């Protein structure tokens, strides 16, 4: 498979309904227990606390009683990079090829045993989705027995991040092989741990390339580059859907949905007056 052959490739993505998200934290814990994420005595310094899925609190900045809050869960955005060519901000900078872009799935990998901990990828990622293992992971005596063999525990001195629960894709692929249909992973056979855990069903996961999948139906990704910024590909044609920092051209595969304008506006930076001009412009209209 070459870089340009996207035809048979999956493009796994996610859409998170911020109006449904309650900030309850199920996705975070589900992710941690699924992926053998360690914990330490003090996790209140959020800048050295490993949470592949992190829920940010957004406020509208108004004073009492007009204040509003929204929660924004932020997994790794699995950026397709400028023009969606696979040169994600992190992938392109890793000196040792410890992270790559899977053109077959659209998933950005992180190989713990290859990474030597230069942290360049962390600097390059505007979403702070990458975490460094400042400490050796340690579990209280006996607790390491709950670790899952599907995800290898990390060692100190390396970077880790959300993998879209890739091991679940591996398992789904194994199952598909067994049942003789290796080219078709069923939507329900590959769902991330945060998606299945969310008690509000705020998270939808699936193949953005597959019109039968719910993510595709909600996002309606535009296959054409944004005419005003050719780096941006896959913009949603749903006016209520946005991506984080879309203008940077990182082309994330995580989309957000909200009815609230102030929430959508927090997805990116806008110069004065800019928002009003572009808030309702989403994608090209040529293809339905």
């Amino acid at each position: 498979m070459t870089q340009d052959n996207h035809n048979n490739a999956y493009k796994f993505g996610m859409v998170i309904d911020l109006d449904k998200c309650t900030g309850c934290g199920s996705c975070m814990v589900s992710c941690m227990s699924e992926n053998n994420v360690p914990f330490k005595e003090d996790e209140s310094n959020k800048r050295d606390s490993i949470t592949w899925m992190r829920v940010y609190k957004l406020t509208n900045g108004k004073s009492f009683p007009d204040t509003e809050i929204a929660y924004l869960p932020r997994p790794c955005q699995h950026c397709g990079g400028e023009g969606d060519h696979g040169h994600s901000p992190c992938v392109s900078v890793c000196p040792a090829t410890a992270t790559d872009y899977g053109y077959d799935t659209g998933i950005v990998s992180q190989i713990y045993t290859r990474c030597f901990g230069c942290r360049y990828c962390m600097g390059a990622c505007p979403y702070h989705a990458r975490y460094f293992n400042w400490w050796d992971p340690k579990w209280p005596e006996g607790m390491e027995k709950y670790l899952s063999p599907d995800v290898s525990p990390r060692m100190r001195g390396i970077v880790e991040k959300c993998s879209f629960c890739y091991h679940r894709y591996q398992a789904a692929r194994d199952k598909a092989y067994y049942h003789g249909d290796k080219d078709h992973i069923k939507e329900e056979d590959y769902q991330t741990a945060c998606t299945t855990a969310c008690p509000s069903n705020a998270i939808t996961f699936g193949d953005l390339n597959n019109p039968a999948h719910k993510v595709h139906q909600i996002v309606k990704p535009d296959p054409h580059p944004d005419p005003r910024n050719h780096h941006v590909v896959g913009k949603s044609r749903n006016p209520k859907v946005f991506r984080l920092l879309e203008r940077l051209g990182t082309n994330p595969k995580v989309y957000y949905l909200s009815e609230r304008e102030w929430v959508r506006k927090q997805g990116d930076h806008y110069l004065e007056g800019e928002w009003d001009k572009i808030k309702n412009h989403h994608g090209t209209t040529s293809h339905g």
Partner: protein
Amino acid sequence: MQSATRKKQATKVIVSSVTSKNQKHETLNFNGELYMKVDRRSFLGLGLGAVAGVAVSPVGLKLTDDSSIWTQNWPWTPVPVDGRVNYEKSVCSLCPGSCGISVRKIDNRPVKIEGLSDYPVNDGGACLHGIAGLQYLYDPARVKTPLKKNGDKFEKISWNDAIALIAEKLKGIRTEGTPEKLACITDKDQGSVSGLFRRLLETFGSSEFYTMPSLESYLELTASTFHGKGNTIAFDLENANFVLSFGAGIIEGWGSPVACFKANASRKERHAKLYQIEPRLSNTAANADKWIPVNPGTEADLALGLCAVILKNNLFDGSATINFMGGFNKFNAMLKRDYSLSKTAKITGIKASEIEKTAKMFAKAKKPVAVFGKGRGDGAQSLKELAAVHMLNCLVGNINKKGGVFVKPVSQYLNFPSQSMDRVADAGFGKNKTGSTVNQLFEKIDKSAQPLIEALFVYNANPGYNLHDSKRVKKTLDKIPFKVSFSSLLDETAMLCDIILPNHTFMERIEDVPSGAGFAKTVVGLSKPIIKPLLNTKHPGDSVILIAKALGGNVAKSFEWANYDQCLESVTSNIWSPLSKRGFVVISKGVPAYRPLVNVSFLAQNPATINAKGDYALTLIPIDNMRLINTGTASSPFAVKTVSDTVIKGKDIVVEINPLTAIGLKDKGFATLTTPLGKARVKININEGMMPGVIGMVRGLGHTFDNKYVSNIGVNINDLIGQVIEPGSGLDAAFGIKAKLVAA
């Protein structure tokens, strides 16, 4: 001549380098000597040759590679063992939510808890505490074996000795003819294990069976106040189209949390509205269609004010009032007198127009429901507030209608065989209970000079942490001469007990788990042992049976099961077959058929509103945060990890305050919080979502047991709030307390 000597020496060098590999020193010495004799070039040749030889060999490359691979397989990084993946169904009993769970196992090792699809409560969803459930299994603070207190320390004791010791103490109490001096505190009165404790007390001769304050207990109290004893209340949130919540943290763990999350999430598709009334912009308030900030502690007044608007405008359901009794006119007159729009507006701090609008919207909604139980619904409440809110439901006639309130009898799915009572048991059981609630029990023990209670069983409850003025509660516990804890963890109350009989955790035991806490359906689930007990623990049911057997006489006769497993099968015989096969039984779903009477006499007297204690300028109120457990157990390390740094920072607790009231206080700065009960060092979070004049502090921190990941963080808010007992109901109605905050 010279060259010949050199050759000879050179040969020696070769020989030595071949033969004396193990005698490096000699070779070196030899070489050293040679240096002076053999010319520089020969020596250089030899040395360079050796270096080049090793360099060209794969040794260097291999060692470089291996050392890097070593860092990839550090022996201190655990390697999880692989095996066959299998899933087991069970029910989570960490909270009253009773969600179905699916446990992923590798061979026999549980590795992940997930929500169980198609389970009637949670249908696949799960909360963070349930998902982190495995951390409780391996909790460092677990009690590993029965313990006996000796002075200040615990020592190990065998199960046999522990049971014998308890039986001996209890027999002593019975011999003295005061069996009523045995009391028991549990978390709930539903389910077979609570049933066994209650049965033990009754056959022993005591009616002193208490449950900790919980939403379920408030629901039953409200139902019995309005609709007669033996009833409970449930809210059909998933069908209601206008939810008027009086601070109920619908997405903060209120009721059956996951079921509530689901009902709330479906609001968007159903076009249902949620109005949230509370002083703080909680997550529920933020997620609601409208947030109505109300002065803390005036929710009851607001509800009555809304009732007044509805009555005044004739917006109530006339057909519903047919069932009203106990002085509806008197109630109406009271409202007119005490809850005019302007008065209500003044008390609650809400604009009159807003009150009027809300009342009208509520009354005109198709399927309105008013929900009570501030926060998670298990904190302090007054019956006045519960009743006032419920009155709204009664007025709009949504009782036992789809999308309304379900009034139904408390589920009685258990069939205990009749118990054997002797003379002592009858006499003791016939005596009056010391208090109507556990708060009252402690107050009476505290105030009494004589020991009212000689022995106490504590199961699944942590009054020493969880009740207001917990320091006083701990002192009161000290006044009870003999205390037995049935706990998995060495929690605050267990630490004060004389004997600890450690329980299997919910992952290790079988148990019937009934749903409750206002959930519309009545479901009984079966919690199953997912893993063999890790430690020397027992099923609490087995512990009770063993104690009963050791007591002998009529008590033993009432516990003729070989073990808890047998007991469970027999007491659930009506439903055992589907329960054991499917893992759950739906006892009732849909709208209850009957139309209960509505007794308004309690409200008609206009009971007094309970005010916060003290006379400081600010009011401290508790915050229920979904990511922290606020009952006796501490949250899991994962849950604590998710908590924002605006709640916990380092070991400090952070309190919320509006910028208008934060005069002299800096965001992220330290302050001393003072209430009539004590002081605490806190960090400040200046938050626009908090009503001016109010300080918010999270519940669930300040644990003191031995788990460094979750304990000794922040303060326990219950240390700072003193209880205020509502006359009549006996409830601790002190939702908050007056406080001051000074920069430290």
